[in-house]
């Protein structure tokens, strides 16, 4: 039996007939009868994408300068994230993986909270309910089950105008937890949109190593609809997600959306993507850049002019300057803070260790004071 070949190979542009696209890479609008675009703030989404790309590039720079321990770049996935997140209503709950900086932005989370995490000041530590945006989840796929449970809670609360969206990647579809989440959400008819950003890479492994069937087709086996959308098309991501959220809120059960996109950066700042992908492939995907096509569209239709683009660019630079300054000013937590918030109440073992370590540290202070 032949084992399928594995290694460098150029990915095809799988824009098959069933893939929903409302804006071509050239910036041409395509109408789709099932996915109207009423209410879409295209200029707003352009601005969002430019700003989060700028946050992303600044974070990479900060990591290169030693100010962040790590950064997971969203470069190339701006449309998938902004389009889907702008389709959410304020009461909807989002469960991200760890690359959803664009979703975080749309949920009103200060990007500094993300930098804190990648700097090593916190493990996240924002209030999920305040932003309806759960903490980043690094173990691949775990959050899909949390999203399912949260959606089951909405059902019990009778929350008819609420839905949940779970973000994960192509690699995550191989995790058992994701299959369990599909099964649970399906049998309980949970109000949940599974939003898979197929960015073509699980670090170095291609989707062909995760699944023989296209990802969106997996939903059929679990008994709910799956849709593939052009993940570099912010309008399509917005329209399809909005439609899916509407369906799940109306009690039709879960929906899987596969946003077919491309990770233009490395997996993280510790990764070297040149070891597993060809430069020509990256170049091909640059022609499908999610931001450029919106810019072309806005310019061509006259919905935005040069002044608008300049203003957004200036705003992005200002945001980066501010974020950099705030990041550099982040204080390290005091050492004894590591003992805080592990338990709600007292825990005799931890309490004793905290007291011992405090005394140990105090010993240095006394010695220092004597010098």
């Amino acid at each position: 039996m032949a084992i399928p070949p594995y290694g460098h190979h150029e990915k095809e542009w799988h824009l098959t007939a069933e893939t929903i696209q409302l804006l071509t890479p050239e910036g041409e609008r395509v109408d789709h009868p099932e996915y109207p675009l009423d209410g879409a703030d295209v200029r707003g989404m352009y601005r969002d994408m430019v700003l989060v790309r700028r946050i992303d590039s600044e974070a990479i720079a900060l990591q290169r300068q030693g100010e962040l321990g790590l950064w997971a770049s969203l470069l190339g996935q701006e449309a998938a994230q902004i389009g889907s997140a702008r389709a959410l209503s304020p009461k909807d709950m989002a469960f991200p993986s760890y690359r959803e900086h664009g979703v975080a932005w749309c949920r009103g989370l200060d990007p500094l909270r993300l930098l804190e995490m990648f700097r090593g000041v916190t493990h996240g530590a924002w209030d999920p309910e305040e932003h309806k945006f759960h903490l980043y989840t690094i173990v691949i796929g775990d959050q899909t089950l949390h999203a399912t449970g949260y959606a089951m809670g909405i059902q019990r609360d009778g929350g008819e105008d609420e839905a949940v969206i779970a973000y994960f990647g192509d690699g995550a579809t191989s995790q058992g937890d994701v299959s369990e989440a599909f099964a649970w959400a399906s049998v309980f008819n949970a109000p949940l949109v599974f939003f898979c950003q197929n960015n073509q890479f699980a670090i170095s492994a291609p989707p062909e190593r995760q699944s023989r069937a296209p990802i969106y087709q997996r939903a059929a086996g679990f008994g709910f609809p799956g849709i593939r959308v052009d993940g570099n098309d912010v309008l399509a991501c917005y329209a399809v997600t909005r439609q899916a959220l509407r369906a799940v809120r109306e009690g039709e059960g879960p929906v899987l959306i596969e946003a077919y996109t491309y990770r233009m950066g490395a997996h993280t700042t510790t990764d070297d993507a040149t070891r597993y992908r060809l430069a020509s492939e990256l170049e091909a995907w640059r022609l499908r850049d999610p931001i450029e096509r919106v810019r072309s569209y806005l310019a061509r239709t006259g919905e935005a002019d040069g002044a608008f683009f300049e203003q957004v660019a200036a705003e992005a630079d200002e945001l980066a300057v501010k974020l950099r300054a705030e990041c550099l000013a982040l204080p390290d937590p005091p050492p004894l803070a590591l003992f805080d918030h592990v338990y709600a109440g007292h825990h005799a073992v931890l309490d004793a260790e905290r007291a011992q370590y405090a005394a140990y540290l105090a010993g240095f202070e006394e010695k220092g004071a004597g010098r």
Partner: protein
Amino acid sequence: MTRITLSRALNEGLRRALEADEKVMIMGEDVGRLGGVFRVTDGLQKDFGEHRVVDTPLAESGIIGTAIGLALRGYRPVCEIQFDGFVYPATDQIVSQLAKMRSRSRGRVALPVVIRIPFGGGIGAVEHHSESPEIFFAHTAGLRVVACADPADAFAMIQLAIAGEDPVIFFEPKRRYWDKAEVDLTAPPSDALPLDKARVVQPGDDVTLLSYGPLVRTCLEAAIAAREDGKSIEVIDLRSLSPLDMETITASVARTGRCVVTHEAPVYGGLGGEIAARVTEQCFYHLEAPVLRVGGFAVPYPPARTEDHYLPDLDRILDAVDRTFTY
């Protein structure tokens, strides 16, 4: 007072928790219509409905993962893992998510999830139905780990576990499910011994014998047998495995000067070693003998026909007690 089994006592405790707080839910495999394979949840779905007592798909990671999501939404899920050996598929959700969420959110998120696990051997079961995985969870910061040993305490402890704000791994001694004792079903949990305290179940003067779960009864039997031999054993039911109640332990050992710890879990890397180290640090000048451990061997849990050799019993415990008098 009512004379009931440990299984029934847990059932009554769960019932009171469901009555006390409408956010309490029960979820697990076969917990609803069947009432659980040990009948601990018998009748609860009938009385509280399918939305509060949920028969889940057969997926342990799914049970804990969705319980986390429900807790994020404000619910208080009580999950049943059907047998000890089936908890491992859920370990990632327990260790990486459930245990850490309060800490990583800097106290902004509480996950009051209770995971009930029937544990231990002695019932002649097939593989994976007789294990004692408590140390994995006791080793994990962010979890509270407890084990009940008798009906009255089980009734109180399950209610205390559910009412708390931290995740609790709640071990139930499956071979003692049918032990009967008097339980005051009107006693409010607030009157019970706090969940993180050990209790002296048999006072004694010569040796401190520490255990939890199924072996507490065996230790009490050992105390009776030793009395005929002229030795007075103090038996302590640890109840809480994380945190350990070292105050109660050291107060006893400082008086007796001898300490034996017994559990079904393997001795190697087990809770007995942790206790031995702490007792040695804190009671060094009181000790007449090293702290001895009696437990499972460094082998996978054996087939049922040989489990009596693997499990600590009265004789192996008394042998260790005797050895503490030879130093």
